[in-house]
């Protein structure tokens, strides 16, 4: 691998849920339907698309773990299969702490997260990326006690991660019960020894935060990223706090590949350079109707815009 300060890893959720390890017979999926299904249903090809585009790492969703285990028998087998196809590291896994504002739910969350942590450790991961609470709709706003419980839940999971050599990081969605009015307060309530922050640039900008100011202020906590663009910064409360806010009823697209929206990635990369950031940078492109196009556009943006600033 080229000697770089930062490498790129791609969250696989833009593909949906991948059910097959490897599809063997083109004609079985083509004859009679004459479509392209053959190309998009198995890990074999999807991993090769990422590697072919120059990405050496991937992230997975916690919801994918059962189907990965069903397909591969174990997370370790999955890791080896990915390596054979040019994916050098399964860097992270997204998970969530729905109900964490209520302490009574914590034992169930810890049991569930232990499965996620074990799965991530088995495939040599680095970082468990966690939505700290459920959606704002039906949960928020959180009172002092609720916010404290969410933070304690993160701290405990952070310690559980550390026992397995992993890190935990906060991933704050624009529609999460932890939101604009308690975002930084919540971060400061968590233990800096165990809990890091994964800056999802679009989610945090839609929430109404200046991502450059936030990163500059909290760069010691922000060790992980989900890079994505948006055309919709500072969305009003009623948009963020509605039922199922991430899936817009009319189909409006929240998230774009970097360069497709209005966020200042050049400024962010200048700051990464200033703070000498090192590690894997995650790209997330949930919501794209065309994953391959988005992956290639992203790689071109990295090569032509971001790498010249800092790599």
């Amino acid at each position, binding site marked *: 691998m080229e000697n770089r300060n930062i490498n790129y890893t791609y969250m696989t959720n833009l593909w949906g849920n991948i*059910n097959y390890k490897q599809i063997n017979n083109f004609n079985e999926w083509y004859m009679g339907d004459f479509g392209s299904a053959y190309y998009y249903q198995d890990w074999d090809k999807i991993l090769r698309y990422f590697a072919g585009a120059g990405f050496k790492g991937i992230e997975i969703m916690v919801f994918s773990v059962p189907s990965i285990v*069903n397909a591969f028998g174990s997370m370790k087998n999955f890791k080896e299969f990915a390596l054979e196809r040019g994916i050098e590291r399964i860097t992270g896994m997204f998970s969530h702490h729905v109900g964490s504002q209520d302490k009574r739910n914590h034992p169930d969350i810890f049991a569930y997260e232990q499965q996620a942590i074990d799965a991530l450790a088995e495939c040599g991961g680095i970082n468990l990326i966690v939505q700290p609470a459920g959606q704002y709709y039906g949960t928020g706003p959180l009172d002092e006690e609720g916010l404290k419980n969410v933070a304690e839940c993160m701290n405990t999971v952070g310690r559980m991660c550390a026992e397995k050599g992993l890190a935990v990081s906060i991933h704050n969605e624009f529609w999460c019960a932890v939101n604009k009015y308690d975002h930084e307060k919540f971060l400061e309530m968590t233990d800096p020894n165990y809990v890091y922050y994964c800056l999802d640039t679009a989610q945090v900008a839609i929430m109404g935060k200046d991502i450059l100011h936030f990163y500059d202020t909290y760069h010691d906590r922000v060790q992980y990223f989900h890079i994505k663009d948006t055309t919709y910064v500072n969305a009003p409360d009623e948009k963020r706090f509605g039922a199922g806010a991430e*899936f817009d009823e009319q189909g409006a697209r929240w998230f774009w590949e970097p360069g497709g929206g209005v966020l200042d990635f050049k400024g962010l990369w200048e700051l990464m350079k200033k703070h000498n950031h090192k590690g894997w940078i995650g790209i997330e492109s949930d919501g794209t109707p065309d994953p391959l196009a988005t992956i290639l556009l992203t790689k071109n943006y990295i090569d032509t815009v971001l790498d010249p600033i800092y790599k």
Partner: protein
Amino acid sequence: MKAVASFGIVNADTSGPGAFLRAAKWYWDEITDMFPAAGFSSIMIPMVPNTENVSRNGAPICTASIRTRFGSPKGYLSYLNDKGVENVEAITISAQSQFNSLFETGLPIEKFFDEFYDHAADTVEALQELKGSTLLVSPTPGIGFLNQTFNGDENQIEKFLADAAQCMNRIGANCRKNQINLAIRNEYWTLMRGTGIDAFMKIVDKELVSYAPDPAHLHIAGADPDAYFKKYAGQAKAVCFTDTKFVDESDVYKTISPEFPQDGRLQRVYYDLGFGDMDFEKLYAILKEADFDGPVILDSKYSLDIPKGILRMRTFWNNLEKNYAAKEVQ
């Protein structure tokens, strides 16, 4: 017979361009329009247990997502009526999807059937509001999953099967109280696969529990669909039509990925109705002979081209009716 089109034509858990968007309401707004456009006024919906991740999306995939987007099942029915769909005739729930949810809920297997009963009771309540007639239930998770859970201990698996029968009786009693029919399905990976349905039907209360035969699942499990349609047409409250070309050459039914065979020459299980190997004309005639007058669930499961698949489903049913009528005249 009443043709009921299944929303199972959409695999909400698949990959590819646009697959992620199948969780969006706008996607379902358009897909829903296509069913009455193809002449279907009644639908079947496969539902999963309510969990946070599926509840917040716009697909009618669980009762919680319907309540989130439409206020109530009644609100959803009003939406469907506006689009030309008269009712949700049936909902399918499965022990496999209940099992899959254990990872996210962290619940132990010991609580499985209590949770499954609650899931069924919640679904029955919704079905009533949706003016439905039938709850379809697949009673056990896959054999491979149970072998893994119980480390292959046959005694524990036998007990699980007996518990499944008890659970079906409880669900059946609740269905009867609410004027809903309970019909069980025997998918080819479950404990009552193929001919195993005969033994299972002996240990459930037939006053409360009926069997809905499905040719694809019977065929894959090595049972003769014609024989089973003949045997069970009289008691059926609903039947399912699913098509396949799949032959289980490597005992995939025993694996933990039975619906998505990971190895071998054949990996695709479902085909659009009329594009597989099942002889539906024969089955249709058997049902006619038995004076079956219930819903026929048309399930072009996991179609690779959904709009085309919906139209193909209409062509399939038109041809069945036309060809049967032509033979009657002869």
